[in-house]
């Protein structure tokens, strides 16, 4: 790791100010992505601004048909929250399946969403549930938030404060984990609310996306059978040592069927 300056502001305003005055600043949340990246010198900031003392970012609130998770809420807290589990069990299960126990004890939803790793789990939940990302500046619908490979709609210095999920009628997530990291080789999240089905795919492409084909099939009839015959094109999918693009394309429909089957009745 290169050396850097470290600060731990108590408020969002102070964090923004520190970011403004830093030559090349970066926010730190759970550090489960940033610290490994800094060790590999993929990231070499002059200033690390630790958000962990900003108290208002750690709240979990389930009310008025919404699950609101503060940006600093850890994966283990989502997995272990009875309130989240009773409102959106698929979201608690998704969090319980991220990485390993030690990663879940540190990693945060804000960090995961800001990082937008193509194989991360949360982006699928945000897209599949039609969530919105709240920042210190504005609210961004998930559909507009995940822009590309490790790229989001966040502006320079903008801080995620909260992610708000509308409670669906039913939802399920199925992932084919990479056996070493548990990142999604392919993961499919399905959310059904007011008769409308949303289907989000992570791991398959450079950025999580909604599958119009699978949504159309499931909006006609919610059953694994209605996905028979649907094939996903491999052209724009990821191809790496873990899985070929064709294999990932195949996994999308397999995981979609598993998610449909796992939907609570």
């Amino acid at each position, binding site marked *: 790791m290169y050396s850097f300056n*470290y600060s731990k502001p108590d408020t969002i305003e102070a964090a923004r100010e520190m970011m403004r005055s830093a030559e090349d600043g970066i926010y730190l949340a759970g550090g*489960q992505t940033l610290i490994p990246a800094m*060790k*590999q010198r993929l990231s070499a900031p002059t200033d690390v601004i630790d958000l*962990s003392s900003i108290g208002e970012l750690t709240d979990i609130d389930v009310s008025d048909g919404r699950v609101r998770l503060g940006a600093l809420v850890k994966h*283990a807290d989502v997995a272990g929250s009875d309130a989240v589990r009773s409102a959106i069990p698929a979201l608690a299960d998704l969090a319980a399946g991220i990485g*390993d*126990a*030690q*990663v879940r004890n540190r990693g945060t939803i804000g960090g995961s969403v800001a990082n937008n790793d193509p194989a991360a789990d949360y982006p699928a939940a945000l897209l599949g549930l039609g969530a919105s990302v709240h920042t210190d500046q504005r609210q961004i619908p998930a559909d507009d938030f995940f822009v590309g490979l490790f790229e989001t709609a966040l502006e320079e210095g903008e801080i995620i404060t909260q992610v708000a999920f509308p409670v669906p009628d039913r939802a399920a997530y199925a992932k084919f984990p990479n056996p070493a990291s548990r990142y999604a080789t392919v993961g499919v999240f399905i959310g059904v609310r007011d008769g409308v089905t949303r289907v989000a795919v992570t791991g398959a492409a450079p950025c999580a996306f909604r599958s119009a084909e699978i949504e159309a099939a499931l909006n006609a009839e919610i059953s694994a059978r209605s996905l028979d015959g649907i094939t996903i094109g491999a052209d724009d999918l990821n191809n790496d040592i873990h899985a070929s693009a064709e294999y990932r394309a195949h996994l999308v429909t397999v995981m979609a069927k598993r998610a449909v089957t796992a939907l609570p009745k």
Partner: protein
Amino acid sequence: MSIDITLTVNGREINTEVSPETTLVQLLREHLLLTGTHVGCDTSQCGACTVHLDGRAVKSCTVLAVQADGSEVTTIEGIAVAGGLHPMQAAFHQCHGLQCGFCTAGMIMSAIDLVTREDDLDEATIRKGLAGNICRCTGYHNIVKAVQMAAGQMEGRGHE
């Protein structure tokens, strides 16, 4: 830049200065000479460096020492009870849950956190719970047995 931090390590208050890029495991091993915690990969994969930070298992190679300011840290050196082994240590010994021992400190710290948190520890739950700890030697079988044995013994002892 160096930063003044105060934390509790195995019940002892430590006040020291660290540079921001110092990881928690470097503080433990190199500054405090608590070398029971190992570094296997230094890339957040293997779990050999697992310690408890405010009661939760974390990979200490993936936490900055400055992030532990104001926290309580427990390492393998801090778990023995009244001069004897912690039940988890004793169970690893008894079940032959280690061979070279390199992963063991991390395994034990993860396993204690798991047993403290989960009530229903069947084999699948234990394997999933220890997914962040890699062992090159044992094939995990005896580790799972050891955790099961210790879980029975830790009940009623008042969890950590």
